[in-house]
């Protein structure tokens, strides 16, 4: 079935992409592997003429970091929670948007607005919602200037204030805020993709279902989801790949401290660790950490691809 003419043609179609990838993606990856295998490689020292030996000490150093397991844990937990939640939410919103007539245009436009919102503004909003301004919590001198909007709502309904991200806040509370923030940030893109996918579904399927008076839920699970499955697979797989690289969101909420003020670095992720190493010109260590992260993402993606082979219908 495979004509040699078509083979040759395929490579022509692929040529521009492959050339660009070789220069700007493959070559840097080769360099990354190289830097990871040079003991204590530092780019600046190299520029000054220092030389480095081959070895795996970079990997050893990465694993021996006192917070290595913590970084891994944060990376994985954030991913495991945010990807399913944001995908499901985006799916529901996209389906809902697709099914209404009046107000459809206005609502679709509103769901696009997060794209044009400055990320600083988003960070500030979350600070205003969860940040408690005040001091001396837990002592007799306790002074609260503001508990943040969420706490105000909680207290309005008779609950007690929660310490979300300030001194003494719990890991669970921190993670909760991060998950909400990340899901919030991820929604617009997913809604856009899924909505585009929904509008591509042949309406004949829906008309047939209507004739049969199929209940909505069955239409959703038996028609919509399977027909949308290629896009869903895409959103989930790329969601996981992107989720494992999470870093800027933590900075958005906690700043460079990457954690509440009494436990700096508590929420650090693998990419955060990579970034720290790069700032200290420890490219060897950063590269080693990136390769470790790559290994993890690869395994998860392969699992995802296997699952999608069975579940995705083209």
């Amino acid at each position: 079935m495979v004509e040699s003419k078509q083979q040759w043609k395929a490579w022509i179609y692929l040529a521009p992409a492959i050339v660009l990838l070789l220069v700007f993606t493959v070559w840097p990856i080769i360099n990354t592997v190289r830097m990871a295998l040079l003991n204590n490689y530092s780019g600046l020292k190299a520029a000054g003429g220092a030389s480095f030996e081959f070895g795996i000490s970079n990997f050893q150093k990465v694993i021996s970091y006192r917070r290595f397991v913590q970084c891994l844990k944060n990376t994985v937990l954030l991913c495991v929670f945010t990807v399913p939640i944001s995908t499901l939410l985006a799916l529901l919103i996209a389906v809902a948007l697709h099914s209404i007539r009046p107000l459809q245009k206005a609502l679709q436009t509103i769901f696009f607005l997060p794209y044009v919102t400055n990320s600083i503004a988003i960070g500030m909003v979350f600070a205003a919602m969860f940040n408690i301004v005040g001091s001396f919590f837990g002592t007799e001198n306790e002074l609260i200037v503001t508990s943040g909007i969420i706490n105000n709502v909680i207290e309005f309904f008779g609950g007690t204030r929660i310490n979300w991200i300030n001194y003494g806040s719990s890991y669970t509370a921190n993670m909760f805020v991060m998950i909400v923030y990340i899901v919030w940030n991820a929604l617009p893109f997913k809604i856009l993709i899924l909505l585009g996918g929904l509008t591509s579904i042949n309406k004949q399927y829906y008309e047939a279902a209507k004739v049969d008076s199929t209940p909505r839920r069955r239409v959703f699970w038996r028609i919509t989801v399977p027909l949308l499955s290629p896009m869903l697979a895409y959103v989930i797989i790329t969601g996981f790949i992107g989720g494992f690289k999470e870093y800027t969101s933590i900075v958005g909420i906690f700043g460079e401290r990457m954690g509440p003020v009494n436990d700096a670095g508590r929420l650090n992720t693998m990419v955060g660790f990579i970034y720290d190493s790069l700032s200290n010109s420890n490219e060897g260590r950063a590269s080693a950490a990136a390769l470790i992260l790559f290994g993890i993402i690869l395994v998860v993606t392969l699992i995802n691809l296997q699952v999608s082979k069975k579940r995705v219908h083209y």
Partner: protein
Amino acid sequence: MKKILSLILVLMMLIPSVAALAEMPAEGYDGSAVTVKFYHIINRDDQLEVLNNAIVEFNKLYPNITIDAENAGSYNDILNRIPAEIKGHNEPNVTFCYADHVATYNESNAVQTLDELIDHPAVGLTAEQKADFVEGYYNEGKSFGDGKMYTLPFYKSTEVMYYDKTFFEANGLTVPTTWDEVEEVCAKIKEIDPKSIPLGYDSEGNWFITMTEQYGSEYTSATEPHYLFDNDTNKAFVKKFNEWYQKGYVTTAGLYGAYTSGLFTSTDETRCYMCIGSSAGARYQRPAKAEDGSYPFEVGIATIPQVDVNNRKVISQGPSVCIFKKDNPQEVLATWLFVKYLTTDATFQANFGMASGYMPAIKSVLEIPEFQEYLEKADGGDNIAMLSMKVGMEQTDAYYTSPVFTGSATARNQVGNIMTTCLGLTENVDAEIDKAFQNAVDECEYAN
């Protein structure tokens, strides 16, 4: 035999040329046309004008030196760009920097030592010029552990204590000059206004480092072992401030959740009456005008509290400049002439100080009439920037420098974390303080 002789002759001819690469020509700058690339972060129009005027004046003296000044963004932008450019061999000639940055850049040996330029017979600094620098600022360039000089100060800021002068006078309080006096004043303020936080201190890192200087205890060293701040004196003052926090006397930006200057300038219920912050941020320490155009209270500015008033120690911050090595010694010489002009020309320094609120690096600015007038206008309201400059220039004997090495920036962050972690402790205070110190040292040692 002939062959060996001719080989020796060739070698002898090579030696001077190799030496010439390493040394500056004794005649100094020879007038050839060079371009000097200069990265800065000035983007306000009035400050840019001062810089551009200086460049024009400089070109009157050296018409063949073209200054290519570029606003390179923020300090972080520069810190990110320069290492990449060093690796790509296209770094600029001179850049704004913090001393900590230079330690990083110098891992590649790319930074020019300034000693041979400062002591150069033709283009060096005169004894007068050297003495004109504020000693504390000048010495920062030499704190790299090898005795050599890598940076020159450009303009500086410091920390000062802003206080509510109106409140102090109305309640008969004296402005504290020592930490013990601060404690007493805090107690009194708490009695007068129980809902207040008497003292705010925004930068935890600065606080820790300044205290180590004031107590004469160890912080860091530019030579190994680097991280020396885990000692009993430091733990003692951390514990003391923990007790202050528990009594409700003090808070920091990290603990408060927002700038303490906001606490200082607010006219709502919760306030602080003393706020230690940057001298360059004076306008943020002034309350908003009331509707009738007057200020709710007058702001006073004083030197920050000390352990020993006869041995004052105050931090200095702000950018310096560093020069990069280049193959063409004329380029380096031309760059040096430019740097020398910017840092020693009193007119430029005075004008820039007035436009920016930063303090000049040299003392002779005080002789410039416009500058004197500027300082005369100082008050605790409209002209608060002048007041903070005045206070800053009166304490020039007190500026200390911290050692600079790869990891000094990490150390500063970590000791800041020690302060925030420890001040809020309510149980197992001693054990937790020990742990916080140990964690900080571990992080520092890991990063570098």
